[in-house]
Every structure is written in structure tokens, then in C-alpha cells.
């Protein structure tokens, strides 16, 4: 939860914005950013659906480099864990 996701604002309607990262689009609340003018094209750090700070495109790209690496590993692990859980659920396993 504390990691946050850098996203780009692509559409804005009041405090709600459509934001994108890596081709994925999400509704993000800009309610916590009332002190900071934000426009379409700006990048924000998003925590649990809420933008908590503005950032530059370069900062967002650098954060994504790290996350890409971590997410790739975690997706592989989740799959391995599900397989292990399925094996554990098979009869005869305590």
C-alpha cells in the first residue's frame, strides 16, 4: 500500500480524474490535491485511488522502471503460490 503508483492524468471532471499507467486506466480522486493546480498530462503519485503528490514525467518513468521489475517477479510468484495452494488442498495433505 505504501508503494503508490505513478499515473498520468488523461481526463478530469472536478475532483475525479481518469489516470493511466502502462495502458491501464483508473478513476483517481484529486481531492487531496486541492492545494496544487493539476491539468491533463500531469503525473501524480496515487495511493489507494487518491493522488497524494504531483511528480514529473521523469520521476514517474524512473519509479515505473523499479515497479516493472518487482511486478514481474511478483506475478510469477503469485502463480507459484497458487500452484502450491492447490497442491496443499489436494486430499491427504494436512
Amino acid at each position: 500500500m505504501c508503494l503508490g503508483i505513478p499515473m498520468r492524468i488523461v481526463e478530469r471532471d472536478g475532483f475525479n480524474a481518469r489516470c493511466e499507467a502502462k495502458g491501464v486506466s483508473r478513476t483517481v480522486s484529486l481531492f487531496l490535491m486541492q492545494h496544487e493546480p493539476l491539468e491533463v498530462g500531469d503525473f501524480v503519485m496515487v495511493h489507494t485511488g487518491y493522488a497524494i503528490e504531483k511528480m514529473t514525467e521523469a520521476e514517474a518513468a524512473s519509479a515505473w522502471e523499479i515497479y516493472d521489475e518487482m511486478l514481474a517477479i511478483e506475478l510469477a510468484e503469485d502463480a507459484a503460490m497458487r500452484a502450491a495452494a492447490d497442491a496443499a488442498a489436494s486430499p491427504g495433505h494436512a
Partner: protein
Amino acid sequence: MTDPAAWLERIRALPLAGRVRVMNVCGGHERSISRAGLRALLPPQVELIPGPGCPVCVCPEEDIYDAIALAQRDEVTLVAFGDMLRVPCNAPKAQPRSLEQARAAGGDVRPIASPAEAVRIARDNPARQVVFFMAGFETTTAPLAGMIAEGLPDNLSILLSARLTWPAVAMLLASGEVGFDALVAPGHVATVMGPEEWDFVPAAHNIPAAVAGFGADSLLASLYSVLRQHVEDRAFLDNCYPVLVRPGGNPTARRLMDECFEVVDANWRGIGVLPASGFALRPHLAAHDARLRFDLAADPHRKRAGEMPPGCDCARVVLGRIYPDQCRLFGAACTPSSPVGPCMVSDEGACRIWWSTGKRECRPEDAPPAPVTGDA
């Protein structure tokens, strides 16, 4: 920005006389450290200790029990961040011991990823009582304040287990057993609250401190900073994440948090009550406090209420007193697919992170430190 290799060179060039224990208090930091395999790259004198950085791990057992009880009521839809669903409590036999089990038993339990989803679910289901069970640190408490300030549907209430990050560090520093020589402070907590919250660490305790982001460059910059402060015996608070951490934090978030919550003494699972360490809803929000709406009261006869599962050493792991693999359940009785304690459940729990980065076996507690060598 300096690249990670250059920071490592600088760290290796520091004249470290003896062991230096650097604690982090953020699951995101621990994840980055483990994934990048930083421990294996640092000089052997440097120990990186995962400390209290997982809000799910310190959420009181009693609160989880209450959430499960609510989830079993016919009129209630219980929503929570996904991490919370598998955390076990000490329910009597034949009763659900986790929210996941409550859901399997027919309870309406839904994982959410944002407070805004709780509002949407409540609006879409006006005949249901929707309860948002919220365990989190400042980074999730700020969005919760945003959600509340934007207006709550009548049928939405909150079971709040939110905590501040710094009081656990203050407790460790005031205890006779500090257990670390330097602190890496959590980046996004400081984005919201401001870095000044951590000034007390160097100012009152002469312990080096640096706020860090989540990339290897920012983490290594913070490690270089605190190690250099240590070598020079000159402790101060450094900001190694200036792109997202500004003086005073996020003013809107802090104002809304102050309007919605008061800071109260709060219980930390396995640790006890820490003064001024929790957020509670202010009186004007009492109508949306699930504890009041459903008249939740502790059952004085419930066995092992508030206790950790037998043999589980999560409390000492959370406090950085032992490494995850020094718990005797680690990797054998306790794994992510069959977790015993909360630290093996949450993505931010140190046990889960170590297990996920390939450290799968426990070692005796008196063994010399030989921390995880991630190979990401």
C-alpha cells in the same frame, strides 16, 4: 540523480568501524531492499533490519474478530483492503478465523483497492449496511479522510484501525533495547505528513535518519547518508526523496485528516498500547463509527483475545527484535499459502517479503546474522 552503483561505491568507501544496524519502517522499503538484493551488496558491517512497517501486521486481533463478527450479520457488507482478508484471529473452533473464511461461510465480504470503492458499494446497495474495515498508516488514512470529506452515504460506516508510523519508532527509542543505530524513514508517509515528524530521531536520540523513496537509488542514497552520519557522529534528518517529500507534507491531506480524526492511544497487535499512535473518528462522525453503530463490545470471556497465535513471533519481527527467518514457524508451519501470523499474510509483512524473495528456511535465533540475499 546518482545511479545505484555510484552510491554503493560511496558506501563501500566509508570507514565503518563496526556493526551498524539500519532499521526501515516501511513494507515498501523492505520489499525494494529484498527485491534488489541490497543486503548482499553492502559491506558486511551493515545490517538492514525490517521494523514496524506493516499496518496489517499490527492491526489488533480484537479488531479482526469484530470485523469477522460484523461480516456474519445478515444486513452487513464488509469491505476491506485485500491484505486484511486472510489475517487470522483467535476465533473459537467452528467459527471463521479470518474474513476469507467468513466469506466462505456465506458472509458478504468484498476486497477493495480504494476507499472510493467503499462509497460506490454503499451507494449501489442502499438496503445494505456497508462497513469499511480500514487498517493502514498515514498513506491510507489520508485517502480515507478524502473519502469522508467528500461525503458519506448514510449506510456506510468505518471500523477504523489506522495508526501513525512514528510512535512505534519512538517507543523503540525509549525502550531499553533500541536495536538499531540508524533509521530509514518512510517516503510516502513523509509525502503526506512532512519529513519533520522524524526530526525527533536525530534531535532527541542522536540517531542518524534519512527519508527514502522506493527505488534503489533513493534507498542507497539514504543508506549512504545515515552511514556517513554514523561515521561522523553527526546525526540529522536527511531528505533523500525530495521529488515527493516536501516541507510540511501535503497540506490538503493534513487538513482533512485533522478535520476527520483525532490522535489517540492505540493498541498494536502483540506490542500493546502506544500513546498517541492511532487515529479515531472525531465526534461529529460518530454516526459513521461502526463500533458505535453496531455496539461492538469486547467479550470478556473470549479465549486468547488479542493474543498472537501460539508459537508466532510476529510481534518481535514487527519490532525488528528478530529477523523473519528467526521465528521457528517461518517457512515450515507458516508460509504465504498457509499463514499463521499476519507478517506472512500482508504484502508489506517482513516474513512474506523474505519468503517471496527466496528465503524459505528458518535458522536458530542465536545464529549470527546472515540476512537474505535477494537475487532480483
